[in-house]
């Protein structure tokens, strides 16, 4: 019976998984290879080969300084992956640490934490992160903690709602009656049961954080030159949009592959979790 139902739910979810992992794999592979080898140095300028269209030596072409676009795209994937992972890690920690106690204790603590979270979510888009960067200066570290803060309320909400459901279950009441301390209940009995809800939120969070980070880099307030990032490459390429469209197309493709890959994986998780629940 269980085997049959597992087989029944697999096709749609696994189509999403396969598409997602393929797309994400392209970007992750570029990142891993770039750690050891890039065709050219990402920052090496070459006055004799400016704005070359894609050819055998430069498969993705070259930019206005004669830098190899393939090498730069590979180097840029590093920042995209690193910033989204580090930012989501911060958001995840802040969100769990505030969301679980809010759901567990309720009352005043819950109201104040949720009020703070809702207030943070009232700043549309990248606004709050832009403020942080304006005040503390643009750098990768500032972008990471600012985006981590902006995304924390999303995770706090997931944790809070999940905790409110779980804490009504018998085994939690039992633990409380036995005198287990609240901190221990939350860490050992509630948190592990939230993982299945936090997983899709984390994958979506990675994608959304990439959207925000690349937007900030596009505005010149994220990753700073000469380091390559997809957003900055796209903003530099805008001046050559008519003459050298390859400068736009390749970074845009890599960026969309990364985000789309993550969306597909989260969609696969959603499909398999929702069907599994029935």
């Amino acid at each position, binding site marked *: 019976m269980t085997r049959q139902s597992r087989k029944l739910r697999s096709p749609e979810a696994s189509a999403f998984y396969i598409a997602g992992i393929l797309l994400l794999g392209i970007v992750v592979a570029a990142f891993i290879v770039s750690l050891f080898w890039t065709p050219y140095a990402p920052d090496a300028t070459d006055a004799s080969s400016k704005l070359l269209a894609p050819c055998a030596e430069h498969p993705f072409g070259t930019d206005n300084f004669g830098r190899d676009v393939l090498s730069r795209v590979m180097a840029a994937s590093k920042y995209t992956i690193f910033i989204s992972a580090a930012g989501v890690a911060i958001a995840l920690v802040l969100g769990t640490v505030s969301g679980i106690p809010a759901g567990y204790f309720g009352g005043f603590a819950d109201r104040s934490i949720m*009020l703070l979270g809702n207030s943070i979510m009232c700043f549309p888009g990248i*606004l709050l992160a*832009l403020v942080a960067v*304006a*005040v503390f200066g643009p750098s990768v570290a500032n972008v990471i903690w600012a985006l981590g803060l902006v995304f924390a309320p999303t995770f706090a909400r997931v944790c809070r709602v999940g905790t409110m459901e779980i804490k009504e279950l018998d085994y939690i009441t039992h633990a409380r009656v036995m005198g287990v301390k609240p901190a221990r209940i939350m860490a050992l009995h509630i948190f592990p049961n939230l993982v299945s809800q936090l997983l899709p939120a984390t994958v979506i969070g990675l994608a959304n954080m990439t959207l925000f980070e690349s937007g900030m880099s596009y505005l010149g307030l994220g990753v700073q030159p000469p380091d390559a990032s997809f957003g900055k490459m796209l903003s530099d390429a805008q001046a050559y949009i008519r003459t050298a469209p390859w400068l736009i197309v390749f970074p845009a493709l890599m960026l969309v592959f990364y985000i789309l890959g993550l969306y597909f994986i989260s969609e696969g998780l959603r499909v398999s979790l929702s069907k599994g629940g029935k």
Partner: protein
Amino acid sequence: MQSKAGYLLGKFIELVLTLFVVSLLVFAAFSIIPGDAARVMLGPDATDAQVQLLRSQMGLDKPLVVRYFSWIAGVFTFNPGTSYAYNMGVGELIAQRLPVTLGMSAIAMIMVILISYPLAVLSSRKPGRLGDQVCSVIGHVLFAIPPYVASLLLILLAGSVFKLMTVGTYVSPRENFISYIGCLLLPSFAIALPKIAMSFKFLRSSIIEQNSKDYVRTSKSHGLSDLKILVRHVLPNSNVSSITIISIILSDILGGSLIVEQVFNLPGLGRLLLSAISRRDFPLLSGIVFYLALITVLLYFISDIASSLADPRIRLK
């Protein structure tokens, strides 16, 4: 059980509290600037006398609490200080730029509704059909394209394939209203694309869910036409969730317009915000940030009230 008045009062208190925390966040962000705000704004070459003068002009020599209340009073009388870089009132500067940002957001929202509703209704008629699946896949892809990347791709298309639109020239609505709408169409479409996908997805699943309910089957057995069931029963019931989605989409559109303005060289709030950041014009920056957050807070408040009127069951939650 909660009464209607009690619910409204509770929501109103929540609105005031949220605004209070939002204002504290904005104020705190610009009060904890590392070092002296006046010195940061003037740059490293300023003399001590200049810094001292700016400090007293901005009221930085007064205690924090006094500064907070005078700032808040200024914000709600639409006069939150003077811009340091432009030497103009912050309220005046924002009012100048507002037509671009609000116009673009409004056009984008209209596009979202006009495109996503018909598609969702068509798609949900026979879920799983080829057309439905194609729409869903395109929706996923559109959802993953950041608005500014979509703008670049649209400029590329408009320039090379259609050769008809002049990108990057802004016409004020007082000069020529038609051209004003025309120059905002492409940027609005770029912002709207991912949101069309989002609205389509929610609406489609909401309609499919309603279609499987008992009341739809009963209406069908009573002989109502599909169109009547859709317009009278299914759409109003799906609307409750779409009120919330629309308020989220509107806030996202507002946030997205900040970046897209930069791509199309439009003189809206986004460009003002960026110039305030690069010139370290903190009075202007805090004004823009607070007003944008204020719009979002009010949007969420209105959407909460609207969905509780549309579906009184929400008040019980």
